[in-house]
């Protein structure tokens, strides 16, 4: 067991060291995508899959399951994941946020009927999620190249490494016995399915209506992720200077 862990950490470090960094001027609009050809193939696969699941499982979930129950499932998924947020926030050196999330977990797990209700939000402790990808960012790891993963969608080399580690950062998965343990993952899956169906027209406009859905999704993911990680707009290379645009004739 111990040996396996050492091997795992070694693999992770190798993956991070391999995070490719763009050369000077090599990333216009802040996009570094050396694997574009492969990524596009995965993207086409994901898109076909998305079409099937939205018309099938997603639509069924949203239409057949009452809204209140959907909210319970969403709350449960978040409560189940909160200990993992706490672990990551401790690793990020953010004790204040880790403490708030601990409180949030305790309140929702007890007063919120095992996480089905989000009582903590009403008390001012709103959802504050994070992941190991963010922890790696805080530790100074570079973003790496853009990736589109099968089933999981857009990512970066750093976020992919983070996803792998997050399979192990939730202490609940060690405490809760085997069949019940999967309730968290199932809730998370349903929650995502619900979100996909709820924002159907927005996601459709990106995935199925835009002229180049791959380029759109890549741009939107990278910008949104950087915003989440707290990259400011002034240090952001995508800031558009109104005075630098030649509007002659428009």
């Amino acid at each position, binding site marked *: 067991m111990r040996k396996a862990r050492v091997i795992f950490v070694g693999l992770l470090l190798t993956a991070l060291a391999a995070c490719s960094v763009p050369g000077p001027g090599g990333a216009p609009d802040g996009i570094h995508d050396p694997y574009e050809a492969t990524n596009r193939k995965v993207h086409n696969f994901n898109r076909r899959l998305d079409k099937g699941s939205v018309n099938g499982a997603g639509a069924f979930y949203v239409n057949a399951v009452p809204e209140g129950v959907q909210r319970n499932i969403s709350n449960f998924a978040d409560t189940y994941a909160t200990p993992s947020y706490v672990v990551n926030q401790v690793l990020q050196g953010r004790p204040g946020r880790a403490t708030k999330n601990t409180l949030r977990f305790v309140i929702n797990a007890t007063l919120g009927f095992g996480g089905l209700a989000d009582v903590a939000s009403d008390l001012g402790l709103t959802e504050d999620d994070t992941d190991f990808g963010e922890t790696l960012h805080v530790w100074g790891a570079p973003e790496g190249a853009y990736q589109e993963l099968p089933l999981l969608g857009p990512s970066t080399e750093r976020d992919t490494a983070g996803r792998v580690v997050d399979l192990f950062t939730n202490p609940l998965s060690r405490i809760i016995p085997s069949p019940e343990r999967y309730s968290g993952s199932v809730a998370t899956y349903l929650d995502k399915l619900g979100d996909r169906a709820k924002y159907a027209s927005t996601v459709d406009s990106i995935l199925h*209506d835009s002229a*180049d859905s791959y380029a759109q999704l890549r741009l939107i993911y990278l*910008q949104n*992720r950087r*915003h989440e990680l707290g990259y400011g*707009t*002034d240090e952001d290379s*995508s800031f558009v200077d109104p005075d630098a645009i030649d*509007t002659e004739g*428009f």
Partner: protein
Amino acid sequence: MKPMHFSRRSFTLGAAAALLSTAALPGAALAATAAQAEALVGKLVSDINKVIGSGKSEGAMIKDFERIFKKYADLPTIAASALGVDGRRATSAQKKAFTNAFTGYISRKYGKRFREFIGGEIRVDGSKSVKNAFQVNGTMILRNEAPFDVTFFVGKKSGKFYNLYLEGVNMLLTERTEIGAMLDKRRGDIDAMIADLKKAG
């Protein structure tokens, strides 16, 4: 501290500078201060909130959004930015046609997005100066959903809004990518792209 002397020279210099600065911006409604930029966004947001709360049909809401867009946005800057470097080879007739088609397209596209926020409200939180623009930060508050960030950019010279970020996603950059892809599909034919744009969004 020495008393300040009001010399003729400094007066002339000051007057010349004041003249120059106005001469350089003919007819522009100056959003000279952050407060004015915030006020502009405040009015824009209250108009958007009214439309979101009106409960009208999608078509009617999109018309309302187009009206708001024309009133508050710096359309030439937005259109020129979306067309990007391809704008250099466009004729002035193409540029005009593009600005028109783009205005309709963006109203349909963002009108539909904002329609999903029925029951929600945008709150203006504050502003700061970023280079030649004011960044006005806002929050979209939704029922039963986590709030998210909406950031408006107001040009210092134009005094109008020219860019929008939704949770960090930059509208101008997104649209430049989209217009670029639409042009690629038409092998760079600007007229064909404009025809497509009239149906898109």
